[in-house]
């Protein structure tokens, strides 16, 4: 009998965790990644990772963490899965600690915890302000150990193009392209786990890395997988302005005492502290972003008349800042020139994270058997708004679910991929080779990079912090138009070796399909919930919309279906951050 193999696509936290879990069971993994895995986007996460370690004498609990997460997500997340994640969190942190993550420490050598938005207790473990990088490096090291032992084979510099699906509709591997030689190759596998991250690049300017195009999710969407809750895109309240990207200034800056303000009547106005006395600067991100947007755009009170407010650390001791926030202070200093220890930072909300993503069941399997998704590319844990420091947690945790679930799937298969006839592999390979040839020959007038910029500009304007149906309809028309214009792209690079324009053109196609799903989701959801705020429907409407939107691809655009949310543990209640939140009492 031939040996089973699992393909993991993506070398960020979720993909590496899934890989580790599979390799530990002695099963071979092919790990595909666009970049050397150590350069994955997880390295950009700064502030920390949530776990109710309860080492601060506050009586924190996994129940409180669960309640904060569900409440913060405006009750749209499936509760059973979130509860399991919060319960697993302390164990995960301790595991990462054993593996060597350089977490910041307390005086007696325990993992230190800091405050974060939308939660009252100190619950966020951190390593300075580079927590994502530290966790990613640790997982990279562990996977390198398995690579050295031969269980894991890395394919770095390969791009996922599509899933291979057999006649019975089961996923049997994937087609990927080598970004240097441009070779297109079928990878046979008995399960495929996509851990391909979010799609910030759909908005062109965001806090994400350039590889975060959502292209892989867009590809399997067109192959029949569902996307879910795509209208929920997190806009981080504190990002640096920039032409090439909006750089994240971590929420930990506020967790450690940073204050947001602007001038009103010639005096500093700490508007978050005034509007939300209970949580102040630590309201969740959707709330803070809307407040900053209102102060700048509606009230015209931005600093120097521009769309920007201050994030102020100058009242905090320099030694404390260097130790706790050195990572972000460096970034600000380098890219802006001002020293945040002495001058308040200028910030404005920026596109940051996709709460929505590939629809999966509680085992992280898509509707295509054998095809899994975990990490930011799935939709599972954050509902309508993600709490800060829950993303590193969901990335790691989902990898501990998708990996073992993929093994379970393999154990139930009658035949492994190696024992199948070559038909389904050849068919998909030929489809991708033909598509590639079409792209290479594209001889129109549009430059793909300019087209992308236009897409991003429209998405930021029409599907951003504040939305309305008129703009969303206009955006939908634009998306249909840009789909046509994509066909008129010009292949501006005429070499057949390490040609980045070929892969970008393919990614752009998938980004446009994803943008369509985001727009339609936002258009149909006539309510305001979490990050999705519509001026024409400013209230949450549980009767109609306490539902997951599921987007199905058709040639004529995405079709939306609705699915009930798992609210089996706590009853939905009004979400407000003006007063202290009482955790729900039902349950344990």
């Amino acid at each position: 009998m031939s040996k089973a193999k699992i393909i993991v696509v993506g070398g960020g936290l979720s993909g590496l965790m899934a890989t580790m879990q599979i390799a530990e069971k002695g099963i071979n993994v092919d790990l595909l990644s666009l970049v050397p895995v150590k350069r994955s986007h997880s390295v950009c996460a700064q502030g920390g990772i949530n776990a109710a370690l309860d080492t601060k004498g506050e009586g924190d609990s996994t129940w409180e963490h669960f309640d904060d997460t569900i409440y913060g997500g405006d009750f749209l997340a499936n509760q059973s899965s979130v509860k399991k994640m919060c319960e697993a969190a302390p164990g995960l942190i301790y595991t990462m600690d054993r593996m060597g993550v350089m977490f910041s420490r307390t005086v007696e050598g325990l993992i230190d915890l800091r405050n974060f938005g939308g939660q009252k207790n100190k619950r966020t473990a951190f390593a300075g302000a580079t927590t994502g990088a530290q966790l990613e490096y640790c997982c990279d090291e562990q996977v390198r150990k398995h690579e050295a032992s031969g269980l894991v084979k890395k394919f770095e510099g390969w791009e996922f193009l599509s899933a291979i699906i057999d006649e019975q509709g089961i996923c049997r591997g994937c087609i990927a392209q080598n970004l240097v030689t441009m070779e297109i190759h079928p990878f046979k596998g008995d399960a495929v786990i996509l851990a391909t991250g979010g799609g910030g690049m759909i908005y062109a300017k965001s806090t994400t890395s350039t590889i975060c195009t959502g292209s892989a999710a867009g590809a399997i969407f067109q192959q029949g997988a569902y996307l879910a809750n795509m209208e929920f895109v997190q806009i981080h309240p504190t990002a640096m302005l920039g032409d090439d990207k909006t750089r994240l200034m971590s929420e930990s800056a506020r967790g450690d005492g940073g204050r947001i303000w602007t001038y009103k009547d010639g005096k500093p106005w700490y508007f978050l502290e005034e509007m939300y006395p209970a949580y102040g600067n630590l309201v969740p991100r959707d709330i803070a972003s809307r407040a900053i947007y209102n102060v700048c755009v509606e009230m015209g009170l931005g600093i120097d008349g521009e769309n920007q407010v201050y994030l102020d650390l100058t009242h905090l001791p320099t030694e404390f800042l260097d130790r706790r926030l050195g990572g972000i202070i460096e970034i600000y200093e380098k890219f802006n020139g001002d020293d945040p220890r002495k001058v308040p930072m200028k910030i404005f909300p920026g596109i940051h994270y996709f709460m929505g993503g590939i629809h999966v069941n509680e085992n992280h399997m898509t509707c295509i058997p054998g095809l899994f998704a975990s990490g930011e590319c799935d939709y599972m844990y954050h509902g309508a708004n993600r709490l800060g420091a829950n993303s590193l947690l969901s990335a790691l945790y989902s990898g501990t679910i998708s990996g073992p679930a993929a093994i379970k799937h393999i154990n139930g298969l009658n035949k492994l991929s190696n024992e199948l006839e070559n038909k389904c592999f050849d068919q998909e390979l030929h489809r991708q080779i033909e598509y590639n040839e079409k792209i290479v020959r594209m001889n129109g007038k549009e430059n793909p990079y300019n087209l992308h910029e236009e897409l991003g500009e429209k998405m930021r304007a029409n599907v951003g912090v504040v939305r309305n149906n008129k703009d969303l309809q206009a955006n939908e028309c634009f998306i249909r138009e840009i789909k046509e214009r994509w066909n008129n792209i010009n292949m501006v690079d005429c070499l057949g070796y390490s040609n980045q324009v070929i892969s970008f053109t393919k990614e752009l196609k998938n980004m446009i399909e994803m943008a369509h799903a985001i727009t339609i989701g936002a258009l149909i959801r006539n309510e305001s919930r979490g990050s999705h705020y519509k001026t024409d429907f400013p209230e949450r409407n549980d009767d109609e919309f306490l539902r997951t939107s599921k987007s199905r691809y058709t040639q004529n655009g995405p079709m939306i279906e609705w699915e009930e949310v798992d609210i089996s543990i706590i009853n939905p209640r009004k979400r407000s951050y003006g007063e202290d939140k009482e955790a729900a009492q039902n349950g344990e």
Partner: protein
Amino acid sequence: MENRHIKLKIKRQDSPDSLPWWEEFCIPYKPNMNIVSVLMEIRKNPVNSKGEKTNPVVWECNCLEEVCGACSMLINGIPKQACASLIDKIYEKTGFEKKIVLEPLKKFPVIRDLTIDRHSMFDNLKRIKAWVSVDGSFAIGRGPRFAEREQKWAYVISRCMTCGCCQEACPNVNPKSNFIGPSAIAQVRLFNTHPIGAMHKEIRLNALMSNGGIQECGNAQNCRKVCPKEIPLTTHIAALNRDTVKYSIWRWFSE
């Protein structure tokens, strides 16, 4: 500021086997640009300074905030992250509109234009066993306590993003040697300091003392100057020199 331009001279190469050549570009100036954002302008309109159509310049980048280590290149001869190299800062040194020269790092094989193959650096991490050996990735309770005092300096080493700048600057990393280079050596100190990692420190010290190891360091001190994460690489190399000497004496007596 109208009509000002950024002039670039870029070393280009179509493939690993072909010969390099130079091409110049002229990009309209905007405040706050960096090398990556200038390269992005080229691909939107791939035309050289003579007005001829050309292939867009190929380079590597990802995070654009100097965390991922992808965009290392030689900028006016110095190994740096392109994203964090602000045009205005470069001009402060050289004068406005002075030509900026971009080249791929020279210690690594070129793939195309400014992209290079750095997989040897990741292989070096395998050679020194750069990981903490644990029983598994499952939860079995709290990890060991670790003093804040130690964490403070070890954390700085753990910020290494394997960008290759120190390899580039080190005269002892060259085609004639198989020196693992400064960054991999410093990683040994990180893993030998962690309470669980320290249980296997001899394995890493042995690796450091083998062919291409710490003895190849000529103490040129260049690595420390170019490290974008300001890791005091030479301090760690000196400490490991002491550790390996102590260990070899111990090994000699215990044999």
